[in-house]
Each structure stands twice: as C-alpha cells, then as structure tokens.
C-alpha cells in the first residue's frame, strides 16, 4: 500500500522559508499571494494491505520520528 504523509508547520509557528519563497514569487511578478507556508511530503510503500492498520502504523511513525509535534502537524493520506 502506498501512503503519503504531509507534514506542515502548526498555525502560528513562524516559517522563514515560506516567507522567503513568497518574496521570491513576488519578485517574479506573481501578484496577490497572501501567504506561503512550506512543508514536506514523505511517501512510503508498506506491506500492510489493511487501510486502518496502515494508517495506525504510519501515525505511530509520525509521532515517533517523521514529524516534530512541537512545531509540526501531520496528515496521513492512503493512495
């Protein structure tokens, strides 16, 4: 089973990289950008075929390693 994990900064945590990307887009002439937030995507191939079990397994991975829950949120997407 293929699983995609989306990791994003929690609301309120400053994102200097997102701000720099936004400035760069501004300078390229892209108007009307209110805000840019940068995150990361991690894709996993699992042996597990059961959706509920796979989700639980990946959520555990997020809590233990993939995300730093002090500053980041995560979202598990089954593909």
């Amino acid at each position, binding site marked *: 089973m293929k699983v995609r994990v989306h990791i994003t900064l929690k609301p309120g*945590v*400053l994102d*200097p*990289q997102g701000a*720099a990307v936004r400035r760069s887009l501004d300078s390229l002439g892209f108007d009307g950008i209110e805000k840019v937030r940068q995150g990361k995507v991690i894709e996993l191939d699992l042996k597990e075929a059961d959706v509920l079990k796979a989700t639980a397994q990946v959520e555990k991975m997020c809590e*233990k*390693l*993939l995300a*730093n829950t*002090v*500053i980041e949120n995560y979202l598990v997407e089954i593909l």
Partner: protein
Amino acid sequence: MRAAVIQFPGSNCDRDMAVALDKVSDNNKQTQMIWHKESGLPHGLDIIAIPGGFSFGDYLRCGAIAARSPIMNAVVDFAKKGGYVLGVCNGFQVLTESGLLPGALMRNSDLKFICKNIKLRVETTSSYFTSAYTNGEIINVPIAHHDGNYNADQKTLDILNNDDRIAFRYINNPNGSMDDIAGILSENRRVLGMMPHPERLNDPLLGGIDGNRLFESITTSLFSA
C-alpha cells in the same frame, strides 16, 4: 571527572568537546568517545556531552535521526536518573528532539548559516553549568549554525522564565530565537542545551577563555556537592 562524548555520523565538534572536558578532568581520566550504535553506557559516568555537527546530514530535521539512535535510550535513562548532560549546537537539537529539553530549533530567521563570535548574557548562575560565571555577565562565545532559532509555545516559555531555566540569552539575537534564548536547562537543572560553542573558546590560543568556566562549573558542582 568521568566524561563521555557521543559520536554520530556527521558529528564534527566531538574531539573539541573531549579536549574541553579533559582540560578540567583529572589527568588519568580521559573523556571516552561513544559511538551512536552502542546501546549501553560505561558505568560510573559523571557527565555525557552531545557535540555539535551535522548528525546524519541534518536529514529530516536537525538532530531528529540522532535522537532515535540506539545510544540515546541510554542517554535519556541516564538523564532521567539525574545524570548531567550537555548538548551543544547539534547536541542541543538532539536534546530537544529526544524530549529531554522542551521546544524546537528551527531554521534561522534570515535563512543564513551564521558563523561568528557573539555575546551572551549569563541569565542564571544557579546551575551546575554556570556557577563559575556571575549573574548578568556578558561573555564571548562562537556560534556556527543554520538552525538555531529557538521556538516553543507561550506556556513553555513562561515555565522556562518562571523557573529560572534560561541559562543564556543573546545580546543581539542572531537567529530569531524567541525571547533571545541561547541555552536552556531541564527541570532538574542537570541537562543544558545551548547553540553557542563554549568548547571552542576555552584557551587563549583560540582567542578567548570565556567558554572554559562552563566546564569548570561542572567539575566544581560535581566534586563540591
């Protein structure tokens, strides 16, 4: 003093740290170097240092993979039993990632890697690491990091402030750290994490000795207690 330095792939301040610890130790007790794949620690250690560097290439997040390596279970146990742990730079990142210290270290606010000498204010002398300084003293210590921007929620910041757990603050905040925080203590005040490098300024030949008193504080605390 029986000291140990943990080495990860990508650590690069490990030997500097060992030299700084040796300098304040008895001659016959050399600092031991411990590879991250070890699962246990030598008996009778007084202090463990987690050095600076770029463990595991800073992949995923700085210090994240190092914090889950086999030796860190033993380091966390050691700290929870009241052992002394010092984390500098990448070592501070490893300590926050392992949960021994609160908060997180994010990318510097100007996105640049900063390598220079900066001034720090000693915010508390009531710790095993800062007792040889004077309260409010300004000291020179080098920084060299890309991700030193200390971040924590307001509740954590309040606790750190109210419990006198902020060890050092920047005079001119170089990286965007909340509340100008450069180093913090654990609840039992025996774990210190800091971004600046005291081990890099502990000999006149290196341009200053302000870092040395941190190591002297440790030996004084250990052996006068």
